[in-house]
């Protein structure tokens, strides 16, 4: 092999670079620590570290009962849920973008948002105050989301006809579910309020039990999507050409959509509708490290996790006595970023 050739093969660029992963993980870890250390209750970082040391049996001393409760039973599950939801949504969004070859794809494309909304509405309206019991509304939302995706799938002819049909079917199903939801909501103004706030998205209800409930789905979703990342790179040359290259296109599309939807449905059921994470984070990563999904998905996992935790921190401290709906914070952070991305893109293409 000639020297020139050897040089090129060494520089094959779509592989995952270790330094990128390290940077992304570091970002996530720092975000998690910051999220754990800050909040409306002023608990010094030193005392938290001391508490951790005490728990590990290496000295230090524990936080007071109330402070300890705040850090470990309030902030900690919140941060962990934020990491899980942020990471899952970012990976699902990236995977959708790969399957649909569309930078505007987000995890709610195939009716997940409408399905979860309808599920939650059914729980709140039909069951009434019983829906406040932990775990009830999320299960309905989860079921509703998956049901909506399944319907979209069927309406689009089991996905064999291509991504555009799927998107159109998703729009149709989402519209129908939203209509039914509105009909049900009319019954009571308290129901409307309740559903509205649920849909706005919040990590406030995070409990360790709730996290365990959604964890398996998120893990499966992320693992499958990450495994299929190379296949998404092949898909980027289009359905026809990737088939000619030997990719079982329909099978890959089905599996990736199923996995991404599972993760997004779990995320929505645990934390309501949190927008922008699924679009903005994969895009940011793409801008920084290139178009290969092998890089984008892994780095989005950590980037999305950290991003959501930081957004939640903002939501918790900005308005005294309240928590801003996290969907609002991600939009406020996400929209200017999006504008920046578009601007840079225009500059690059010129």
């Amino acid at each position, binding site marked *: 092999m000639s020297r020139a050739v050897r040089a*090129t093969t060494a520089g094959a660029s779509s592989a995952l670079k270790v330094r990128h992963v390290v940077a992304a993980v570091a970002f996530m870890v720092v975000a998690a620590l910051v999220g754990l250390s800050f909040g409306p209750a002023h608990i010094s970082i030193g005392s938290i570290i001391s508490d951790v040391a005490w728990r590990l049996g290496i000295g230090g001393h524990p936080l007071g009962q109330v402070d300890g409760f705040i850090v470990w039973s309030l902030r900690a599950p919140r941060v962990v849920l934020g990491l899980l939801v942020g990471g899952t949504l970012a990976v699902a969004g990236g995977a959708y973008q790969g399957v649909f070859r569309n930078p505007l794809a987000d995890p709610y494309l195939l009716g997940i948002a409408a399905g979860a909304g309808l599920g939650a509405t059914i729980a709140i309206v039909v069951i009434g105050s019983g829906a406040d019991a932990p775990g009830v509304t999320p299960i309905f939302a989860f079921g509703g989301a998956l049901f909506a995706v399944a319907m979209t799938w069927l309406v689009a002819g089991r996905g064999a006809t291509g991504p555009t049909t799927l998107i159109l079917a998703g729009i149709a199903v989402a519209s129908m579910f939203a209509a039914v939801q509105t009909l049900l909501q009319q019954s009571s103004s308290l129901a409307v309020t309740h559903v509205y706030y649920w849909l706005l998205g919040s990590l406030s209800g995070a409990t360790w039990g709730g996290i365990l409930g959604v964890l398996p789905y998120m893990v499966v979703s992320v693992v499958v999507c990450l495994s299929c990342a190379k296949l998404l790179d092949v898909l*980027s040359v289009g359905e026809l050409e990737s088939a000619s290259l*030997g990719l079982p296109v329909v099978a890959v599309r089905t599996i990736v959509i199923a996995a991404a939807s599972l993760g997004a449905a779990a995320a929505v059921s645990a934390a309501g509708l949190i927008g922008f994470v699924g679009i903005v984070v994969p895009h940011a990563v793409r801008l920084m490290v290139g178009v*290969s999904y092998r890089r984008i998905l892994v780095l989005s996992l950590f980037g999305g996790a950290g991003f959501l935790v930081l957004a939640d921190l903002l939501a918790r401290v900005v308005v005294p006595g309240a928590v801003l709906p996290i969907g609002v914070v991600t939009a406020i952070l996400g929209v200017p970023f999006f504008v920046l991305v578009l601007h840079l893109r225009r500059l690059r293409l010129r």
Partner: protein
Amino acid sequence: MTAALEVTGLTVRVGDRALLDGVDLTVEPGEWVTVIGPNGAGKTTLVHSITGLRRFDGGRVLLSGRDLTGLKDRARAGLVAFVPQTPVVPEGMPVFDYVLLGRTSHRSLLRAESPHDRSVVGEVLARLDLVAMADRGVHTLSGGERQRAVIARALVQEAPVLVLDEPTTGLDLRHQLDVLEVVAQERRSRRIAVVSTLHDLTLAGRFADRLCLLDEGRTVASGSVTEVLTAELLGAHYGVDVTVVDVGGTPVVVPGPRTVT
């Protein structure tokens, strides 16, 4: 010796119209057959059918003796490589990675590429004079370079049959020759069977071993270049008066009747 590609009685119907009606085609290893014919004759349909990208309703396609219909995507990609007319250009993908996609069929789907995959790509890039652009995005290449990259991707598939659909689309004369020379060289050195469709009849004649003239879904002529490129056949099926002139052994098709000087 098994034919690299053997097509018998290929039929494709849409509604009650036949896009292809009983087409036969056999290509030996190392042979180059070019399919010509007027617009709508079914050339692209034929090409998509024999590469498994489109279902056909009747007939049989054998790739190195194996029936196309039963083949899984991966196995098929190892037997026939396809170069589309207007390839999708994924923005931002480096040329090396783009060509590397051709190795998809050579490893299990979930595994990363091997050093062998990388060295195959490196060699093909060298042969096609693309090494200098290996790290550049595919979208930054000129038309001719891009076409070479697509061909490179098809070549790394290491399939015994190479099918090209209008490989000279949008290229200037120099790049058209470039591309066709590359294919000619590859088929000579690796004994690949080549099937291509071409609009330019002269170029078709210059590079192919045999020609197949398609009209309204049927093979109306098949044979050596001189047998097929005749004024009568071309005039009958293209509906245009042409003159075929022999220039140094190569037939040149000139539109319009012979003018007496």
